[in-house]
């Protein structure tokens, strides 16, 4: 068993000079060298940048200067986030050799806080998928069961932390891509409210839905990473000026008397019995902590997947128009400009991306716009209203994160609709823009991790972090 490091552990180790940041970085690269060939969690490593940063932290220690909050903490970054000088592929052949000329704001903020960027993690191509099997660079394996998927699309970021190949990582979540792999890999994983974290430098999939958020080994570390990346950024006009509370102070506040909504619409058909059993035990634990369960209805839940796959694909078809073989990435030559576009895109994109571009272009095209895209936007409003109504009655909403634990590699690849249905409990919160966290909640049949999801009201991250922390401290992970 490799030792599990936490942010506090790293801080104490450095401060007491038990280990240097350089030694710790080297230790993590050794772990990666040992495990990554089978897990396929990392696509690129950045040792030069990592050791330079580690040396900077060690110099601070040597000089007796104060250490920044994430000093020396080894982190991994999903390969859809731009990293200056480090190849960023989005899991796609079309960006196989792309080296961004700038850092995403979230990456920059982590590094400014002292974190050491080990490398870039595997993901479904352009973050489109729920199993990581849509990566052009091969699937990631689930560290808990090597014949199963880690979830997706941030499968590499989840697996890296779960396997001890990073202390924390960044993922992105458009319909569940942080929370679902967090659940399947048995670690806490969070997306903040839409607008909480700057997306500058995030290579876009669906702009009204995409969010960046952390994976870590415990809730406190999740809160620390969110703290670092949250807040207004002049480079992203969708990042809000809403004040960012000090989450470290918020998470230990008492949860007694909190009203937790249990939407019966989330416990309908399709929920695996092993998952249901653990979630019910999780709710019992929250009751023991003094929370008051409230039966609520979210009547438009059943329409969320259909709505999501209209809106997300429409936005994707527009965002992915930029891959045209002119400014970056692959080009397949043709004597005509339009021929060059067609061949480049036909050769560079994988099957799921092509399928979504076709579907997204179709729902936006003349004659179908009203029937699909406009309809989708209207139902999105109803789903958001479900959440607003619920939060007049409760402080947080508790659901399963995924209807099933990690499924076998290859089990769902031939049926896209079945794969989409894996997102049923996560897409609702994505459409509504509310924050959500997935927490380890025991193991289905004693083996595969189960995730319990908490939703809070928009910009109510503190509340779900508080509940999450209390749940974790009370032993929720081994329920």
């Amino acid at each position, binding site marked *: 068993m490799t030792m599990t490091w936490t942010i506090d552990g790293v801080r104490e180790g450095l401060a007491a000079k038990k280990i240097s940041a350089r030694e710790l970085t080297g230790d993590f690269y050794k772990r990666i060298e040992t495990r990554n060939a089978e897990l396929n969690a990392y696509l690129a490593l950045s040792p030069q940048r990592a050791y330079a940063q580690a040396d900077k932290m060690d110099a601070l220690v040597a000089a007796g200067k104060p250490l920044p909050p994430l000093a020396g903490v080894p982190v991994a970054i999903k390969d859809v986030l731009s990293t200056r000088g480090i190849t960023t592929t989005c899991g796609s052949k079309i960006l196989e050799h792309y080296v961004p000329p700038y850092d995403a704001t979230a990456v920059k903020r982590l590094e400014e806080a002292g974190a050491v960027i080990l490398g870039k993690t595997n993901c479904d191509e352009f973050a489109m998928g729920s199993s990581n099997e849509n990566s052009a660079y091969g699937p990631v394996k689930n560290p808990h069961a090597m014949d199963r998927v880690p979830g997706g699309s941030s499968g590499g970021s989840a697996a890296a932390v779960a396997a001890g190949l990073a202390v924390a990582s960044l993922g992105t979540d458009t319909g569940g891509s942080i929370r679902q792999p967090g659940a399947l890999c048995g670690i806490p994983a969070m997306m903040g409210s839409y607008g909480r974290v700057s997306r500058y430098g995030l290579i876009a999939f669906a702009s009204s839905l995409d969010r960046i958020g952390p994976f870590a080994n415990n809730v406190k570390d999740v809160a620390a990473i969110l703290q670092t990346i949250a807040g207004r950024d002049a480079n992203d006009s969708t990042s*809000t000026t809403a004040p960012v509370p000090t989450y470290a102070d918020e998470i230990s506040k008492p949860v007694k008397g909190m009203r937790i909504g249990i939407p019966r619409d989330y416990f309908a058909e399709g929920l695996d019995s092993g998952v249901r059993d653990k979630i019910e035990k999780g709710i019992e634990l929250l009751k023991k902590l003094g929370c008051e369960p409230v039966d609520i209805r979210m009547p438009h839940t059943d329409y969320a997947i259909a709505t999501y796959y209209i809106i997300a694909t429409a936005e994707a078809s527009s965002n992915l128009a930029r891959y045209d073989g002119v400014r970056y990435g692959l*080009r397949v030559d043709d004597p005509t*400009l339009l021929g060059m576009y067609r061949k480049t895109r036909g050769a560079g994109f994988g099957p799921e991306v092509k399928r979504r571009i076709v579907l997204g272009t179709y729902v936006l095209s003349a004659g179908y716009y009203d029937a699909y895209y406009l309809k989708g936007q209207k139902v999105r409003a109803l789903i958001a209203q479900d959440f607003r109504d619920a939060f007049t009655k409760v402080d947080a909403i508790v659901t399963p994160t995924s209807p099933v634990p990690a499924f076998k590699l290859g089990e769902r690849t031939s049926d896209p609709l079945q794969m989409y249905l894996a997102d049923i409990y996560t897409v609702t919160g994505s459409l509504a823009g509310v924050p959500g966290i997935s927490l380890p909640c025991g193991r289905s049949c004693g083996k595969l991790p189960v995730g319990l999801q908490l939703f809070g009201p928009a910009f109510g991250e503190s509340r779900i972090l508080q509940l999450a922390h209390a749940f974790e401290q009370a032993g929720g992970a081994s329920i």
Partner: protein
Amino acid sequence: MKISREDVVRVAELAYLDLSETELETYRAQIDEILEYIGKLNELDTANVEPMAQVLTDDQTADATLREDIVVPCGIAAEVLKQAPDPEPPFFRVPKVIER
């Protein structure tokens, strides 16, 4: 059937996306199934619902969306051009688009 082969051909043309014969038929069948599923939205009467394009309210974005329009040089043009498949600084080169 919700979507025909001709529809897929037309949409792929709009998206500048080359698809093989096999891809055309596979995606047609899969997208047909997805559109069939999406049809369940018609169970909902949305005649009086305002469409939601994004979730942020005006007060959340008021001071975020307006700024002075000032040019800020970022000085990375050379690096940007290095990523292009066929650069000719300071230009991107593309196949000829105008016939003489």
